[in-house]
């Protein structure tokens, strides 16, 4: 019989003891899964994981360029409410998810940044080789009443991330936050950070009222297409969205909120022919799961056949653009009905268009086993989704992986 030692007493964790929290120990069962499934010869790329950048605002705010905004931010760095767009939130499920209380207290190993320690521990436990890491509270900045805040924080955060943390660990990658409200600022972000080590793409937070087909964005799309670097639209939810005013529970707002803006942006992209205008622009929809795609395919195809005059740039059915021109991250994989999931994966060409994502450490994270254990996928499809498709979407990552293989 194994008796857990003092540091591992589960009861201590259950009552909320935070000091000594270790992501590797929290994910011990994930490590057992990885070993049982033999992931050591499977390339696993997680295209959507997170950190809580608000833990490090003391390090980030110094990079805010505008002196007035920097002064504002630095006055209450421990309380970001004076600069972020915030709303009620129950990600931690009223304390039931123990890591939410533990992660902020996780100590760094040696002189490395705490994020580097945490990221390596959880990546190794889960079995992930490479991981794209995104911020968390900043995902709401697209709704901020002052767009200057988004522009300023996107710049400051990216400087901190690419200069202070990313260089410590080659396995961590970034899709740089673009302040989409300001096209010129977004272009400056691409030009400034696009070639930095660890940067493999760019990201727009989906929760915003922007019309993604607006002419003002064409310069940006052309620039990304030319560079061969993907643009991701990362979903989130907005508790203060007017449509959700009658929704009293986190589960309600989260379930709909993470697909609402994704549906809108994907529809506008297709109907306005963005894939025809930029056929080599790689667009990745992140963290909306998959169930919304068959819904949108059927809705748009049905109406397009009656109103093709409203979408004159299209050369094929909307569903074909969704199945051939867009990429999708997998989490949260809706797997309650295997027949529906199998059909969904067929409809979206998952074998080439789907990219595994964990969303760790968020409350609804997925392990690689959600893909690996699917009974209807062949081995090659599993390997594609877990890692190989990402190499096609992220050329810089592909070059790095191939370089490593060449060098043994």
């Amino acid at each position: 019989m194994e008796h857990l030692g003092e540091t591992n007493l589960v009861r201590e964790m259950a009552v909320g003891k935070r000091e000594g929290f270790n992501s590797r120990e929290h994910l011990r069962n994930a490590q057992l899964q990885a070993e049982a499934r033999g992931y050591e010869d499977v390339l696993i790329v997680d295209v959507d994981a997170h950190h809580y950048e608000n833990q490090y605002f003391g390090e980030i705010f110094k990079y805010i360029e505008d002196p007035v905004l920097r002064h504002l931010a630095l006055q209450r760095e421990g309380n970001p409410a004076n600069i972020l767009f915030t709303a009620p939130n129950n990600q931690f499920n009223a304390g039931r998810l123990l890591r939410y209380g533990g992660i902020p207290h996780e100590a760094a190993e040696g002189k490395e940044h705490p994020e580097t320690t945490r990221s390596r521990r959880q990546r190794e436990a889960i079995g992930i080789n490479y991981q794209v890491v995104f911020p968390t509270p900043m995902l709401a900045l697209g709704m901020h009443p002052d767009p200057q805040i988004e522009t300023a924080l996107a710049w400051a955060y990216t400087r901190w991330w690419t200069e202070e943390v990313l260089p410590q660990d080659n396995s961590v990658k970034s899709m740089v936050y673009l302040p989409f409200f300001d096209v010129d600022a977004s272009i400056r972000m691409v030009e400034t950070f696009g070639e930095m080590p660890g940067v493999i793409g760019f990201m727009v937070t989906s929760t915003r009222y922007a019309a993604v087909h607006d002419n003002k964005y064409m310069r940006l799309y052309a620039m990304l297409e030319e560079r061969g670097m993907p643009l991701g639209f990362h979903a989130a939810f907005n508790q203060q969205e007017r449509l959700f005013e009658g929704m009293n529970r986190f589960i309600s707002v989260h379930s709909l909120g993470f697909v609402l803006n994704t549906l809108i942006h994907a529809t506008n992209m297709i109907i306005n022919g963005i894939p025809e205008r930029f056929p080599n622009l790689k667009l990745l929809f992140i963290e909306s799961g998959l169930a919304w795609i068959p819904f949108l395919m059927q809705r748009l195809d049905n109406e397009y056949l009656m109103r093709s005059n409203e979408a004159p740039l299209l050369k094929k059915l909307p569903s074909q653009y969704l199945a051939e021109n867009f990429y999708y991250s997998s989490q949260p994989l809706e797997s309650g009905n295997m027949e529906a999931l199998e059909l969904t994966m067929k409809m979206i060409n998952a074998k080439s268009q789907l990219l595994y994502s964990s969303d760790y450490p968020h409350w609804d994270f997925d392990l690689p086993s959600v893909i690996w254990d699917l009974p209807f996928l062949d081995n090659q499809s599993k390997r594609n989704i877990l890692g190989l498709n990402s190499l096609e979407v992220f050329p810089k990552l592909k070059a790095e992986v191939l370089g490593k293989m060449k060098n043994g």
Partner: protein
Amino acid sequence: MADTFIAKAEALETGQRFLASISGTEVVVFGHKGRVFAYENRCLHQGGPVGEGMILGRVVAVLDAEKRLLREEFSETEDQLICPWHGWAYSLETGDCAGLRGARLRKFEVVTEKGDVYVRTRD
């Protein structure tokens, strides 16, 4: 039939939880309100360490005679063991999953003899 020694009963009474590897299965053993429970330490969802989770009364909705919601409260008779990874909740008494009918944690028999707690397995 085989009994696997877990711990002294008084250790469980202090709130300590124990893990035992029994025939390759990781079993979590813990006490709660004077009773001892043993379950496989693997959530039915994605395999999380359910035995590390919080124990909390089931949330119940209280309606009035006209079926209007009056309030919500924690059950005083039904506790749940909640997986710390994603929040899947199980009846502490039976291991039944709160959200998925028919799904149940594997429960093990616990016996206490002369102050020693054992998990009993049968072939």
